[in-house]
């Protein structure tokens, strides 16, 4: 009971300190931010030690077999070189490990994007024009919106233009018209994203208000 009360009181205090930003930047908000950053860093360090370094590196080196130790020599060496990045005179020693990380990440990201996003999304767009889907009015409208939205949105980002006789710079008339439709689709998309962000923030605010209300016994 006491622990829950203290934790709830700390949570209430930090919540108010963060909400104080509504009136502007103030020390209470800064204190809350520093507390959150410090707690997060400490927690992450603890997680990294207890959940990564100790079980995956230290314990196998200590109690593991020779083969396991040999296998861990490479990641141990790379980890040590990566630590050299924090020391400027020897920061160049961390370049191989950093290069390996970047290279592997890039390769994985590109491969995953091509196989997991690009090709499937292209296939889905092509399937939107499937005659079976176009048979119904809903399917036809949906497919038409997807196709029109895709083409017009891409046309919006076509910035090639020519100089007119009066000195103005304008795109081709057809491109201007298509791009205008694309701008509508983009505006709707940005509106949806803003609505999603507002909805998420609104839900978080409601949760905090319910927490406050429950803390004071009104919720």
């Amino acid at each position, binding site marked *: 009971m006491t622990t829950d009360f203290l934790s709830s009181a700390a949570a209430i205090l930090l919540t108010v300190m963060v*909400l104080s930003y*509504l*009136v*502007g930047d103030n020390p209470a908000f800064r204190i809350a931010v520093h507390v959150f950053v410090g707690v*997060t860093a400490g*927690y*992450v360090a603890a*997680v*990294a030690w*207890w*959940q*990564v370094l*100790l*079980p*995956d590196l230290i*314990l196998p080196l200590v109690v593991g077999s020779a083969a396991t130790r040999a296998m861990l020599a490479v990641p141990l060496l790379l980890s040590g070189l990566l630590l050299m990045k924090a020391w400027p005179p020897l920061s160049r020693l961390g370049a191989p490990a950093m290069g390996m990380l970047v290279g*592997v*990440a890039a390769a*994985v*990201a590109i491969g*995953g*994007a091509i*196989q*997991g*996003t690009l090709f*499937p*999304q292209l*296939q*889905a767009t092509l399937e939107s024009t499937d005659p079976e889907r176009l048979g119904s009015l809903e399917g036809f409208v949906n497919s038409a919106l997807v196709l029109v939205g895709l083409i017009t949105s891409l046309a919006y980002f076509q910035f090639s233009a020519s*100089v*007119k*006789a*009066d*000195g*103005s*710079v304008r795109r081709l008339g057809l491109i201007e018209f298509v791009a205008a439709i694309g701008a509508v689709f983009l505006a709707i*998309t940005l509106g*949806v*994203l803003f*609505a*999603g*962000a*507002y*909805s*998420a923030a*609104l*839900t*978080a*605010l*409601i*949760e*905090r*208000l*319910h927490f406050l*209300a429950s803390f004071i016994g*009104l*919720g």
Partner: protein
Amino acid sequence: MEDAVVCPNCGEQNPADMPFCQHCQWRLRTLEAEWGTDQEVRPSNAPASPQRDKSEDASVPDWLRASRSQASHDSAAFGGRLEAGRQPAAPPSDDDLLAGLAQQDQPQDEEIPDWVARIVGMSESGSPGQAPSSENESELLEGAPPADQAPSAEHGIGQEESQSWARDSLPLATDIGPQEGANRYADAMGTQESGTEKSEINEWLRNLDAAAAASPEPPAGPGLSASENVPTWVRRMTGVPDGQPQETPGPADPVPDWLSGSPGRSGEPVSAPPSSLGIPTRSQGRPLEATDKASGEAPAQSATSAAISRGVVPAFPLEDIQKLDVDAVFASMQMPVWMAGVNPPEATSVSDLPPAAQEEEPIAPADLPSWVRAMRPVVSGVDQAAKLEADKHLEGRGPLLGLQGVLPALPGAALPSGRPESHSMKLDVSERHRAHARLLESMIAAETQPLPLQGTGQFRSHRMLRWAISAILVVGLGANVLTGARNFPLPAGVPNESIAGIQAVESLPPDATVLAVFDYEPATVGEMEATAASLMHHLLLLKHPRLAVISTSPTGSALAGRFLAGALADRAYMRGVHYVDLGYLPGGLAGVRSFAQNPTAAVPLGASSEQVWDSSVLLGTRRLSDFAAIILLTDSLESGRVWIEQTAATRGTSPLVMVASAQAGPMLLPYFDSGQADGLIAGLNGAAGAEIANNGLPGLVRRYWDAYSLGLYLAALLITLGSTWHVGIGIRERRAETA
């Protein structure tokens, strides 16, 4: 070439020690430099000059140096004759190498031009008829012009050519005595001047005439008796007027009949020879006036001068000559003895005449002696005539504009040089270029215009507006939360992706192993727990799955424990019994890929370093496809995309259901539409359908729904009011601008 001297006439380079240009024979050094400044310029003392010695050493041949020595020796005796009561005469010539030869005897074996022979032939023969009178001797000796004055540009011929033939003839005059040579020279020059104005002829001669009149009668030279052996008719032919006692022919003079009717015979003065013949005579030159003066008459009152002033009275009228049969006349006439040895001149050929006698025609090059030709420089390949013509080029630009012949025309000067060709600086600007220029100018002008500063009142209004919006939301939502009002029902329509997600969960076999990925941050805990609670509650309630919790975020494990112990507390899921915590999955997408390929290798131990893969929860689960379903709880697009992409190949037939926040939901929806995700619960709206499907359990959606709905309405209202206010301000500003 340090010792090179550029000729001021032709521009060619010559050695520094050369007194004359090798190309145009122009004097390269002044007389002062050649002879000295204070010395009397005489051939006799010329070798005393050091410069002269040097030049001689360099350019004068030995024979010429010996000749000069002899000439200087002879000039001493000759000078002694002239010193008595006579003004010092100017050297016959002092401008070339032949200066020293002015008093040297001409070798008999040298080749003499015909016209020179005709002039000096009488003296060479030594006939008495060639000897001038003492008066003429004295006059002409004094009247011998300096070499640098005798050739005048007014002669109507080239200065160079006139000098050449004059110089060539001058040494020969020494053979017949200084007086005779000067007389010949004066005759020749007088003949040349026949085509020019006589008033401009030889001003120096007039001056010398006056000096001669004032000087005493010079003694006759040895061997030069005055007017002896000279026929009277010859004297008359030379233009000496009658009435002169010393020149009046005696009655015994043999006068040809054909001369009896000549004007000279009648005693009228002869002033000019027939111009058509162009034969130089003494009557053409000013020395006749000197003769008059020597006779005691005033020059201005003499008959000769009067005749000259009245006009030209030819001694041999052209009409008479044309009428006469000249050959017959000469055949019948009795020639004097002194003319017997003279070959008949080929006077009919104009080319045979001396250069001064060739009127109206360019003077032909003199027939120079061989030794003179040997001294002349070899003519270069450049055409001298073309060079002279090029030297007359009129400068059309530059500082020498308007000047002619200032710069020598060098060979090859007209060829293209290394100087860059000049181009016009005028730009060819088209209308398109102007349009670009206007556009650029407008852009630059827009950049330079200062932006109006926003007043403090505007900032204050923004702050007040922010406070007002915050107050409306906090107060409105707080009031709804505190009051617990249920004015907004849950949505009747459930999104397709939510229905698909619920169906995917309901299709799982009971007691299956389900992988729950908690990839969201603590900041979105309120939304994510409310969104995922209904689905997870529905899953736990219906299927009682064994859960394996994992997260790519360090805080995911703690959030998972909070979720299971908080929102799903009624399901009483215990760690290690009903679920295992695989903890943090490091490496980002690489870690996800590694886990997708080999879960046991990527995460060998649990969050508390326990053996999870051998536990009852994960019994028989070694691969990703062994999980009955994967439920992804994420608040970001990146996390959802990574799990979709990296597990697509290893997931097998296991369904992937995503529970996303309202912010990431729209971006993850295409993956559901493409079939890569089997269900999507996005935001509180999507969770409402799941909660409805779960009979309103656990009830978080319903708890938040009124405040959520109120907040959406308030946001819509505020956006509408703000847009209306903005439109109103814009209209007012436009009206103000138009006013």
